[in-house]
């Protein structure tokens, strides 16, 4: 295996995992966020604290959980509390450094839709719904969002705001009285978007190697701003890639797949 061969999903996952500092207390969504968070734990951030909404605090799963309530999460956690306690004492209690979320759709101010495509009362597509996201997005000190970038997902206007990013931008989030700092990074298979410090509009600040700016703009449903000092995302190092692939191989062996959901 050469260390420069990697897929778009792999660089997305590794880039997302790198953002998670050691010792961070992270409220983990299932799926891509959980993969990135566990990769961080298995590489540069051994003391990251992973909290899942089903109750495990300090989970150290040996394989990726297929669902939010896998037994491996419970058996490896420092403690398992009730779901109400997770939301009341730990999330609302203000103890979460990073909320790590996925999304079906996102807009330029990092608001998220996971509820419906089309009108709420007569939806074209009924998505699973909010789950823990509205309060994770509101109450974690900062939020990372990881999802694949394309025009169906990155839209000009969301049919439904499930979870608040920066609402209409600027200081709209603060004015609405939302306590947490909001999204600080959106990590995709094409690059990394971060909110402008003033307008809070998502801006492409890092592009993955081999991807063109045109490709990223083409995959975005609004006129995407590009940072003047656009960086190229560091390529995944061999150790991280190996750890990720080992984790996924272990997971495939245990589960047969590694997608995820909140049920």
């Amino acid at each position, binding site marked *: 295996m050469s260390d420069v061969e990697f897929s778009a999903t792999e660089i997305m996952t590794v880039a997302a995992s790198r953002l998670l500092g050691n010792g961070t207390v992270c409220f983990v969504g299932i799926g891509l966020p959980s993969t990135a968070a566990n990769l961080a734990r298995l590489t540069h951030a051994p003391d990251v604290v992973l909290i899942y909404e089903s109750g495990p605090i300090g989970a150290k799963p040996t394989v990726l959980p297929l669902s939010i309530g896998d037994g491996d999460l419970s058996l490896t956690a420092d403690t398992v509390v009730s779901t109400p306690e997770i939301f009341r004492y730990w999330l609302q209690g203000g103890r979460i450094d990073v909320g790590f979320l996925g999304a079906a759709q996102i807009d330029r101010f990092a608001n998220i839709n996971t509820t419906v495509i089309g009108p709420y009362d007569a939806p074209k597509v009924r998505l699973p719904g909010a*789950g823990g996201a509205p309060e994770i997005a509101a109450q974690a000190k900062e939020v990372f969002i990881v999802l694949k970038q394309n025009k169906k997902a990155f839209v000009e206007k969301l049919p439904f*705001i499930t979870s608040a990013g920066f609402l209409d931008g600027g200081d709209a989030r603060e004015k609405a009285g939302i306590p947490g700092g909001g999204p600080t990074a959106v990590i995709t298979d094409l690059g990394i978007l971060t909110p402008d410090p003033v307008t809070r509009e998502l801006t492409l600040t890092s592009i993955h190697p081999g991807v063109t700016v045109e490709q990223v703009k083409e995959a975005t449903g609004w006129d995407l701003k590009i940072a003047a000092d656009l960086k190229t995302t560091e390529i995944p190092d061999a150790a991280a890639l190996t750890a990720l692939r080992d984790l996924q191989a272990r997971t495939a062996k245990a589960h047969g797949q590694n997608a995820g959901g909140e049920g």
Partner: protein
Amino acid sequence: MALITPLREAVSSLIHDGDTVALEGFTHLIPHAAGHEIIRQGKKDLTLVRMTPDLIYDQLIGMGCARKLIFSWGGNPGVGSLHRFRDAVEQGWPHRLETVEHSHAGMANAYVAGASNLPFALLRGYTGSDLPKVNPWIRFVECPFTGEKLAAIPSVRPDVTVIHAQKADKRGNVLLWGILGVQKEAALAAKRAIVTVEEVVDELNAPANACVLPSWALAAVCPVPGGAYPSYAQDYSQRDNKFYKDWDPIARNRDSFLAWMKRHVLETEDFAGFMRVLGESVARETV
């Protein structure tokens, strides 16, 4: 005082058409056997409540048992959509399904408020979300000391809650462990609680401060070994991830769904019968 009761009798005597029913479980300990028994007995017009409606709710909805669903995340965990749920919401099949939609934080707090005999739950929640625009049951109250605005939603107070647990003793005291979800709160929020258990033992030997539901707080305890399948019971069984994936093509199509339900649920006598026929189906596939 909970009597140790066969599941069929508990469902028959304790769940009525039109009831508000919560079958709770968070991946772990989902009471599938009880859901099947509700379908077998043809219960109708139920208001179903659950944070994470999954396969068993897809089945209840597809079989026309539900009039309304109160929920916060409806999907097939690790796989994708609940096709019967989507068909009900998107196409009104087999009939229109009213939905009341919350966030997990809201629902979890609503169960706590229900268990606490409070009319509403108080939380920091929903701010900036469109959920309050489509759910008239999300309101806001002011703190009488600070003036802060906080979300208020009605308590969940089911007529019946059904959960699955690992153990009961012969008196009907129940012990569960591992991922507890909102099960304790859901059981205590309900007028009547039914617990299916893996086994009945002489003594619970519960660790200090374990999650124990005393017999006298429950309406019925029903021994159903493996009754959470394809969900799992920690230290008793593994989640059958393959079943969740296999459900996707079955549920995508109305006819294949109905045929599957007929063969595996309606025409089986009980959960043991379901497991036997399911075993036959799986064996046939893999020949």
